[in-house]
């Protein structure tokens, strides 16, 4: 009930090819996240699936049938927008009921479904308010409520958390993950935030300039990034990408070492440098090391209790088994 297949889908705006031919299969019940820097075409891809944009070429199939030329409403998908796109003049109840009303459903059934959705989303006390009287998180839940009452084949989320403050974002992230666990329906989620991608996804699709760089589970992407772009994009803080002599000693053009894969010492190690900034987070300390001769700055994630300060000399030793090697084209070398 929600297997989505993109078959050589392309999109052009005039002469600009935003999405070159692209193949992708999203299995039923999968939580798929499209992630990439802004302007990479991830939102466009979502809008193509939704039917808000027409495909230039190729086919979109939902559960085996071609929907490429169907209007959005007929595709059986529901979408949550970045701005929530609630109808400001309608009460929360009417907002959630709107798609059902448009489908010509009986009012008793509408009421049952709206009440059900409201209790799932903790909105029961707010049903008679207007969107303008709600907080950001509540508005977000109304938008989700409007999506779930339709019992769609798949949910589409377009950067739904980017308008929330940091604390609320973590909470809503959990709520959406829980919702997915409960509904077990297909969800496509677009974000530029790799933390959201890593924490929520069953499958991450990393996009750059309309091209899929890699598809895989969060840990696959973390452990075996296919190229330097994915290596740099997934993981926080970013992976250190080192070129030159150090890389050559590993028979690679570029080597990548994640900040958490260094052992630090004051006495001795493979490389040495000077601590420029140390950021103490309590649980961890991020050290920005300069003067190693490897790159402008090397980020190291050390234990929360390490005592390095600005100007201290530090010795770094990479854990050999966690070194990623890439060739001159930036592709992974095994």
């Amino acid at each position: 009930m929600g297997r989505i297949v993109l078959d050589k889908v392309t999109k052009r705006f005039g002469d600009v090819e935003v999405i070159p031919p692209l193949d992708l299969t999203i299995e039923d019940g999968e939580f798929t996240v499209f992630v990439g820097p802004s302007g990479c075409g991830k939102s466009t891809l979502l809008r193509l699936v939704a039917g808000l944009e027409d495909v230039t070429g190729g086919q979109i199939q939902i559960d085996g049938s071609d929907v490429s030329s169907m209007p959005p409403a007929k595709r059986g998908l529901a979408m949550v927008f970045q701005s929530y796109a609630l109808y400001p003049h309608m009460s929360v109840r009417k907002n959630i009921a709107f798609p059902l009303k448009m489908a010509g459903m009986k009012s008793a059934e509408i009421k049952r479904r709206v009440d059900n959705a409201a209790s799932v989303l903790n909105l029961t006390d707010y049903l008679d308010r207007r969107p303008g009287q709600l907080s950001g998180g509540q508005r977000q839940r109304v938008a989700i409520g409007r999506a779930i009452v339709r019992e769609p084949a798949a949910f589409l989320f377009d950067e739904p958390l980017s308008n929330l403050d940091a604390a609320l974002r973590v909470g809503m992230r959990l709520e959406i993950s829980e919702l997915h666990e409960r509904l077990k329906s297909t969800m496509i989620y677009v974000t530029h935030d790799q933390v959201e991608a890593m924490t929520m996804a069953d499958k991450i699709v990393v996009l750059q300039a309309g091209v899929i760089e890699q598809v895989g589970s969060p840990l696959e992407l973390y452990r075996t990034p296919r190229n330097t772009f994915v290596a740099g994009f997934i993981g926080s803080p970013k992976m250190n990408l080192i070129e030159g002599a150090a890389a050559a000693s590993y028979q690679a053009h570029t080597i990548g070492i994640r900040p958490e894969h260094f052992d630090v010492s004051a006495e001795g190690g493979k490389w040495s440098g000077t601590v420029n900034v140390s950021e103490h987070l309590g649980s961890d300390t991020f050290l920005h090391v300069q003067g190693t001769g490897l790159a402008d700055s090397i980020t190291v994630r050390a234990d929360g209790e390490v005592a390095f300060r600005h100007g201290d000399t530090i010795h770094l030793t990479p854990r050999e088994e966690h070194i990623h090697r890439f060739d001159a084209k930036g592709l992974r070398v095994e």
Partner: protein
Amino acid sequence: MATQHSRSAARMMMAPAVILLLGWMLVPLCMTLYFSFKKYLPLRGGDLGWVGFDNYTRFVSSSSFWPSIYATLVIVGGVLAITVVFGILLAILLDQPMWGQGVVRMLVIAPFFVMPTVSSLVWKNMFMDPNYGLFAHLWRFFGAEPIQWMSQASLPSIIMIVSWQWLPFATLILLTAIQSLDSEQLEASEMDGAPIISRFWYIILPHLSRAITVVILIQTIFLLSIFAEIFVTTGGAFGTKTLSYLIFQRVLESQNVGLGSAGGVYAIILANIVAIFLMRIVGKNLDN
């Protein structure tokens, strides 16, 4: 920065404007009230003394009073209906991306720049003249008898002329309102399965309600006092005598300043009743 000193300085600097505006309003109002209680016939003896409420009773009991109220309301109502409905349609049309949008928008606004007297004369002589007007030619082309617009359909004619003048104003305000509609809302309603009519009815129209309110309020204020359009077309004949035109006739044609002033006071009361009535209906629209 609102210290005692800056606040009194602000009051000082505002004073000239306030005094001027107050004088502008109060002097004519007081003179109108003063004359409305007098028998004052400039060409037939001048000031003939106080007469109490005589002018007020005479004005209302005149056979042209109620027809003038009726004509006023029909014209205001008709023009409002036409400008709001067509204003919304035009605004939606102009909101669509098209070639030469800037020029088309300029052209749509153009009628608003034409003086009422000029546009009325153009309509009367070039379009509505039963012998050589464009409409007459059109009617004859289809083999019909040309309509004597100004006598047979006097009120609709004036409504048509005034609507033509005010349509750009309504269109302009409604267009800016439509442009402020969040496109994600329309897309959301599209995803929700709303066909185009429902999208208009449930999303666009409620979004426009505040702008429609503003259009109705402002236009009502100006339409209650239209004069030039009637003066140069029917001259108040054929049932087109509005309240303001009746007052004009009493003061200038019958040279009865007292009677006209009493009519003026009635006009003030009518305008206020309409204003309060409108505010009540639409006030809650402006609230949120």
